[in-house]
Every structure is written in structure tokens, then in C-alpha cells.
């Protein structure tokens, strides 16, 4: 699988990372190097083998349904770049 410049730009967009035009070529090569290395794994037959989710052999513990947090809007809003009327205020997003 070879990555082209378009794919680099697409992945950068999806990740919200800014990749300068002059760096696209170098990033593409880096990507391909990594992918080629990973592709060595294709030599192993993994048919009918489930992906490993976690190396910890543990199952999920559950929490009781009680309200023990919240009511801390000042702390929650403290890190917001902008807050108005107790809302987070962000540049207009209408899809």
C-alpha cells in the first residue's frame, strides 16, 4: 500500500494537523517507510484470528448509577478559550 500526496493531505485534514505544502513530500515518504515496515506482518496468516484489544486479560467493571460529579461549571469553563453566559463560545459552526 503506497500513500500519495493526496492521502497525506486527507489524513492531515482528518487529524486537524497543519502540514505545510513543502513538507507533504517528506511526510509521504515517512508514511510509506512506516507502512512498508508494518507490511512485513502480512507474511503472517491471520485468517480467523481476532484482533487483540488489550494485553490485560480483564473484563469491564461497572459503576453504580449514582450522581457524584458535575456542578462544577466554573472549573469546566475555566480552560475554555471563550465562554459566554455559561456556554462555551466557539466560532460559528453550522454544517
Amino acid at each position, binding site marked *: 500500500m503506497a500513500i500519495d500526496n493526496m492521502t497525506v493531505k*486527507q489524513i492531515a485534514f*482528518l487529524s*486537524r494537523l497543519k502540514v505545510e505544502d513543502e513538507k507533504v513530500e517528506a511526510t509521504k515518504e515517512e508514511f510509506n517507510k512506516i507502512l512498508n515496515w508494518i507490511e512485513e506482518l502480512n507474511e503472517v496468516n491471520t485468517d480467523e484470528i481476532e*484482533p487483540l*484489544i*488489550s494485553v*490485560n486479560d*480483564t*473484563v*469491564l*467493571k*461497572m*459503576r*453504580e*448509577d*449514582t*450522581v*457524584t*460529579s*458535575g*456542578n*462544577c*461549571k466554573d*472549573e*469546566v*469553563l475555566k*480552560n475554555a478559550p*471563550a465562554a*459566554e*453566559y*455559561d*456556554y*462555551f*463560545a*466557539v*466560532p*460559528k*459552526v*453550522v*454544517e
Partner: protein
Amino acid sequence: MSEYIITTNKGKWEVIVGLEIHCQIISKSKIFSSASTEFGDDPNVNVSFVDAGMPGMLPTLNKECVRQAVKTGLGLNAKINKYSEFSRKNYFYADMPTDYQITQFRYPIVGEGEISVDLSDGTTKKIGIERMHIEQDAGKSIHDLNPTKSYIDLNRAGVGLMEIVTKPDFRSPEEAGAFLRKLRSIVRYLGTCDGNMDEGSMRCDVNVSVRPFGSNELRPRSEMKNVNSVKFVMQAIENEAKRHVEIYENGGKIEQETRQFDPTTGQSKLMRKKEFAHDYRYFPEPDLPPLVLSDEYIDSIKAEMIELPDAKKQRFINTMGLTPYDAAVLCENKEHAEFFEKAAAGHDAKKVANWMMSDFFAMLNKKRLDISQSPVSAENLGKLVELISKEVISGKIAKDVFEIMAQTGEDPEKIVEEKGLKQVTDTGAIEKIIDDVIASNPDNVTAYKNGKTNLAGWFVGQVIKMSQGKANPAIVNKLVREKLDK
């Protein structure tokens, strides 16, 4: 089965619809945090650091959300998966602080199921459930408070959702509407979701495609997001299917796309095409190990399951003699069904059903009351029907008694007693009234004798009117004819 075919002068088209429904889970706290799920509080009050996506905060799964999901799965007659996994669905949007939604992807908690829906022509149809998974809701964006900014309230962020995906089994708007009503009825019976589409606690995405009638090809579909009432879902299907047909018949093509339904026009407009579709890059949620449920756990929830609308309906038909239609109407709402059972206990169930579905519901509608606020209690409605059955009062007087009950909440027996409304069955008294009516209307008597026999009904009406509605109509009917034919 009722067929819904779009017929034009160029051909016949069949409509294929699948639904995805998000149901907010009823629980005190959120699915992965211990903040409150309360609706309508001040902005950002019910937000924990987990919901706000603060670095280092870890999700912990709410037991109750899992229980509610299993219950709902059982209510959908679906397979409960003992093994399920959480995944991250990655996308950027201002109302989702973590930039990913914790959801289930490859292994949902609930697998295939099936529910049957009742259609207007009296038939039922089975609709397949593809799967149901649990996930977290996003926050709310408010776009109209500031011209250049959007405001974000995270109170809803992290509230548990059940996403139910149906198979593409619907062939008409009616079937989709009937399914939504049935689903809403099931989750309300179970108390797992309040089912209020207008408040957004139940939201529906609609997938529509069409194909030439008789073929079994699958053509590209369009998806309409967040259609928020049963009526709008039906309208969206109807209009979208027509739009597809028009495009095909004009030689055009449909591409897979996401559209926005506009309730004010009933039409939809393009949101995004497939080439701009999100690439969600799902991967297993590293903060949550797989969810494993035991047989004992699932059995314990099975043991708690209450009677659901279909079973209740069947019982009303089999043991109480209701028609399938009446039973379905009464069973759609659990409170209505319970009220009916209470009212019908020991009385004529069919008559009680008729009263509930006509005068009783009309009264609630008029007074804008919920059944729990009804001035007429179930016991009193039962008593009223009993008074009619025992011919203590006539059906006509019963309507007047019901009016008084609706105003005062009084016992019908007491009303009948105090107002002297008991039916007159004493033939002597009735005969006297008949004689009076005959004596004062000689013209009509002559006309009757000359062949206008349908005037008998007029005489009956006059007699009942003279008795102030208290004369027993059956007796009046009999005596009037006897006397006129003499």
C-alpha cells in the same frame, strides 16, 4: 398486505426504507461519567471532567445503562451478546470535547431481533432488527444566540444512547410510522427511554431508496438525519422516494448522500455527498476492556421483564373479547392499558373499551389531561358501564351521567340516584306516555297506518324525549309498534 407502489406514466416503483433510531437511556447518571442526566438545567451544570474531555479523565461504565440496554434488547426479541466491545468513532465537532464518541462497532451488545407492527388494513408485518449498540450522546450547539458564534452546552454530552438499526424491511411510509410507534411503546413500557421525539430523547435517521417494482436490485440510498416526529418520518419517506423516482425517470442518477429534512416544507436538502462522508477511523476504546455478561445476569433481567404491548394485546383479544384494533389502540400506552384493565374488571370489557376509546379519550383530549389526571376513575367508568349493562340507565342517559362524572369526579351510582335518572321499565308508565303522544299526533298516526311505517321511529323518539330519556328504548320500541298496529 397493503402495497405502496409509486406509479407514474413511465413505470412502477417500490420503496425500500431502513431506520436508525437513537434512544436516550433513562438513568440517573451518564453512561461513562457520574454527572447527572437531568434535562433542562442551566448550561454546563451537569458536566464532569470526563464529559468535558479533560486530559487524563477515564470513562467508567454505568451499570444501569447496560441493564436498560439488555432489557430493551429483550423487548426487541433480540439476541443479547454476552461479549461486546467499545470503540472510538473519531470526528471533530464543537459539541464533542473528546473529539471521539465512545460507541460500539464490531461487537454490539444486542444482535438481531424482530418486532411486529400492526397496519391499518388489519395485517401485521415483522420488521427485522439488525443490531442495537450503546454509546454516548454529544453536547448541544446553539447557533441563534450570537451572530458570529455558536454556544455549546455539554449537559447532554455523555448521556447514554441506544442506537437501534433496522433491516431495510419497510416498503411504505405507513410501515415505518407503525414501527416507530411500536418501538416507542415498547421502550416506554420498559421504562428504558421516554420516547419523546419532539424533545429529542428519541431521534430517527431515515434511509430511503427506490427500485423498479418487481426487481430485487439495491440502488443508492439517501439518508435523512434527525427527523423528529413520526409524521415527519412518514413525510420524509414519501417525498424522498418521489424525488428518486423523478430523477431516475428523467435519466438521472442517485448518489449516496446525507440530507437534511426540513419539517416546514416537508422536503429535504443536501448535506453532504458520499465523497465527503466522514472517515470515522473506528478503533477499540483503549480505556474500556470488553463488556462480558453472564447467562445468570441476562436471565435475571429476563425474569424481571413485564408484559409488553404485543402480549398484552393478545391477552385482551383472547380473554377479554376485544377486537384486534381496539386491543392495539388500548395497549399502545401502558397507562391506558392498565386503566382499561382496572375499569373492565368484573364488567363488560368490550363496552368498557368502547367507552374508553370514544367519550373517555375525547374528554381527556378536550380537557388536555393525561390519563393519570383523569377526573373519571377507572372504577367509576366500570360502574357506569355496569349501570348500562344492567339496564339501570339507558346509553343516552349514560352520556349525561358521564358528563357530570367528568366535571365532578363523582360515583355514577350516586349521580343516578340523586338526579333520579333511573331508567323507566314500568310498562304502565311508558304506555301512558305513548297514549299521550298518539293522541296528540293524529296526522302521523294516519300516515303510519297508510304505509309510512318508518314513522314508528319518530314516535319512539317522541316518547323517549317525553320521558326525559329515562324510558327503556327496547320497551318503548315494542309498545309503540303494538299500539300503532292495533
